[in-house]
């Protein structure tokens, strides 16, 4: 039953990737590259593929994005590079994510080692959190010669890459592979260590030249009416549990999911792929204002999820939820074995001494009031996506380097 959950869609072959690359118009001042938040430079790596230089393509991706194989799979390209693609003037945008996946798969198969740690500059940086932002910051700092220790509250690294995004979209072996390359470069990850509890912020500050807080929004939000209800689980708890068990979990016959973002789509699609017959998704927004990406929504619909849009939970009694429409006079009651809440995630920055408003830094950039402490990833301002986390990771590393003045010769 877990096969559908564990299986990724097939990737390109050399022949088919060339057909796709041949559709690329090789634009001047390419809009796709300008639209990539992490400057992965799709126009350049597609051109390399087109001219049969797949290794060169891998270098372009990797040097700009330490999580290139992950972004290839989970990037909401429809909002970034593919939205900008000139090919849309003819028919449909180039499948940039698919080409990137082909190239990074080739890189892995060929065991290429593109990134290397720089000569040591004697400085130490601590990073709290091993999500994409922390991992990219570590990579960039290692390249510049810093030594890097990452402190992670969980037993595995990756943040939502490991404990969120489902297997069929992002296989764990890809995540493990990308993380291994970063630890091979010299990143030292301390697992099961909560900063603010197991170790203090003061200790990290005393031992390091700078501390980066990259804790993301790793806790689920709750609605008061669902508290202390055995039938209720949060989306991130459900997705983490399912991914860790590779889909081997006890399944309900009938599940009600509340929420309409990408996380909710992941939950309903996962349930369906695992074989749950009745999956109903109650969404606050109506279809024309949906937050989930079109790709994720289409994926959920393909699996046969029942989506009721415009409804909000009004009351709950054990397994029974009453929902009301936001605009019209309509009410429905659903009884479900499991109720999964996908209404957003929040940050827990307890004892870290940083100020956040709604889980985000009050002002743009990566500095905090403490000159030794920086923030990055989802808790910094800007989009909350993996590719943005990568870019924010690069930027915070660059900022720290310009302040600490590490390796001068590689500037």
């Amino acid at each position, binding site marked *: 039953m877990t096969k559908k959950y564990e299986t990724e869609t097939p990737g390109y072959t050399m*022949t088919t990737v060339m057909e796709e690359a041949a559709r690329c118009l*090789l634009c001047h001042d390419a809009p796709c590259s300008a639209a990539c938040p992490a400057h992965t430079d799709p126009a350049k790596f597609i*051109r390399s593929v087109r*001219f049969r*230089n*797949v*290794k060169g393509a891998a270098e372009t991706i990797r040097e700009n994005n330490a999580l290139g194989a992950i972004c290839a799979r989970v990037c909401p390209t429809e909002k970034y590079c593919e939205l900008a693609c000139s090919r849309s003037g003819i028919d449909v945008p180039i499948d940039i994510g698919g080409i990137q996946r082909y190239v990074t798969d080739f890189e892995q198969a060929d065991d290429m080692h*593109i990134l290397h740690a720089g000569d040591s500059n004697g400085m130490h940086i601590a990073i709290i959190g091993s999500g994409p932002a922390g991992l990219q910051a570590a990579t960039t700092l290692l390249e510049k010669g810093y030594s890097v220790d990452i402190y992670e509250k969980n037993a595995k690294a990756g943040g939502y890459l490991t404990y969120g995004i489902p297997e069929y979209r992002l296989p764990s072996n890809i995540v493990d592979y990308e993380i291994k390359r970063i630890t091979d470069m010299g990143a030292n990850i301390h697992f099961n260590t909560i900063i603010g509890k197991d170790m203090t912020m003061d200790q990290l500050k005393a031992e390091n030249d700078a501390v980066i807080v990259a804790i993301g929004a790793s806790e689920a939000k709750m609605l008061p009416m669902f508290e202390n209800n055995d039938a209720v689980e949060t989306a991130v708890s459900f997705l983490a549990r399912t991914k860790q068990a590779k889909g081997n979990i006890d399944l309900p016959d009938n599940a009600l999911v509340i929420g309409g973002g990408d996380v909710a789509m992941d939950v309903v699609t996962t349930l369906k792929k695992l074989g749950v017959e009745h999956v109903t998704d109650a969404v606050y927004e109506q279809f024309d204002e949906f937050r989930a990406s079109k790709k994720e929504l289409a994926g959920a619909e393909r699996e046969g999820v029942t989506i009721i849009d415009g409804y909000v939970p009004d009351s709950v009694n054990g397994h029974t939820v009453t929902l009301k429409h936001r605009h019209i006079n309509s009410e429905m009651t659903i009884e479900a074995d499991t109720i999964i809440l996908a209404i957003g995630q929040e940050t827990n920055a307890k004892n870290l001494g940083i100020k956040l408003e709604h889980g985000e830094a009050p002002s743009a950039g990566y500095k905090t009031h403490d000159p030794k402490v920086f923030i990055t990833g989802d808790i910094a301002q800007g989009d909350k996506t993996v590719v943005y986390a990568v870019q924010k990771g690069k930027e915070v590393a660059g900022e720290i380097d310009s302040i600490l003045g590490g390796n001068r010769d590689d500037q």
Partner: protein
Amino acid sequence: MINKDISIDFLGVHFENPFCLSSSPVDNCYEMCAKAFDEGWGGIVFKTIGPEDFEVDEVSPRFDELTKEATPFVAFKNMEQIAEHPLKQNLADLKKLKENYPDKVVIASIMGPTEKDWEELARLVTEAGADMIEMNLSCPQMTSHAMGSDVGSNPPLVKKYCEAVKRGSDLPMMAKMTPNITDMVPAAKAALAGGADGIATINTVKSIANVDLEKKTALPIVNGKSSVSGLSGKAVKPIALRFIQQLRVASGLEQLPISGIGGIETWEDAVEFILMGSTTLQVTTAVMQYGYRIVEDMKNGLMHYMEEQGVEHLSELVGLANKNIVPAEDLDRDYKMYPEIDWDKCIGCGRCFISCYDGAHQAISWDEKTRRPSIDTSKCVGCHLCALVCPVHAIHPGKIVMKEGRKGDPSKIDVVSQRLY
């Protein structure tokens, strides 16, 4: 990003990389060459410079392309002659290029109708500071028959003009040969006898790429008419490689220094020309289609290839394939190799069946129910047409057997290709 030394010496001149623009509109003026150098080209062969009094008067439009299915520029046809800019300006451009790019190689391409012109042009470009001279003996669409490929296919004339150039200059010199000739060896030998230090080849191939069905003339149409003129681009690569091979195996020419030209687009094309005996490479059509930027992937891909091959100096690769290309009568004809179908890849399209029936030996039968081919080894001759047409590359080299009555060990037969599909 990989960084390897891909420099090479050719005719005593050091090239930081072997990639040069060939003489054509892609290096028509100072600004173009400067941009090309900035984007990474190792050298340029400046657009052919003619004598002051030769008037260049071009037609409009002047290009055509051969396509196949959705692929543009399979080949490119042009009706252009030599530099349109005045001689003085061309010389000034050469001078400025050498001043501003002392580490790049600036090659002057020249062409004249008389010995006196050749000698004078050679003297002028030498004074302007060029590193090398290329004699254009090969343009197939000159309006004067005293110039161009009519000259290049006439060995005594080639020799005479080479001598004239050598009188005017002591720079290293290559003669650019025309492919519009059955055998290039006599012309190349004549050039060397006249003092040439190396050969550049090929120039464009005389052609008509398309005929307009309404106007009943070739393309491009110039006020209702057209002309035979030069073809370049990917489709001429096989022609170029064969000439280069035949030069390098001609007796006395085994070490002939060659600048290879014709359809180079990718690093793989470049390596092919090098393995066939080219030391430097020249490109026009791919640059006209895609821009100078293509040199990035050519250089990077070449570095990766050298790394894979464990090669430290590019020169080690020059001509490595020459000895493996032998006359047809010397090939091993004692065995045949059957194709093998990879059933995980086969999608049941039936293209192999059609081609084997209609274009080979009716050795594939087709199961209409399962939509799968099967190969009858009693009829299969091992031509591998089926492998070439299969859209998913499901057909690959299979069992090797000795032909009846022939001796040999099939396991020792070398047929493996590394080509990346």
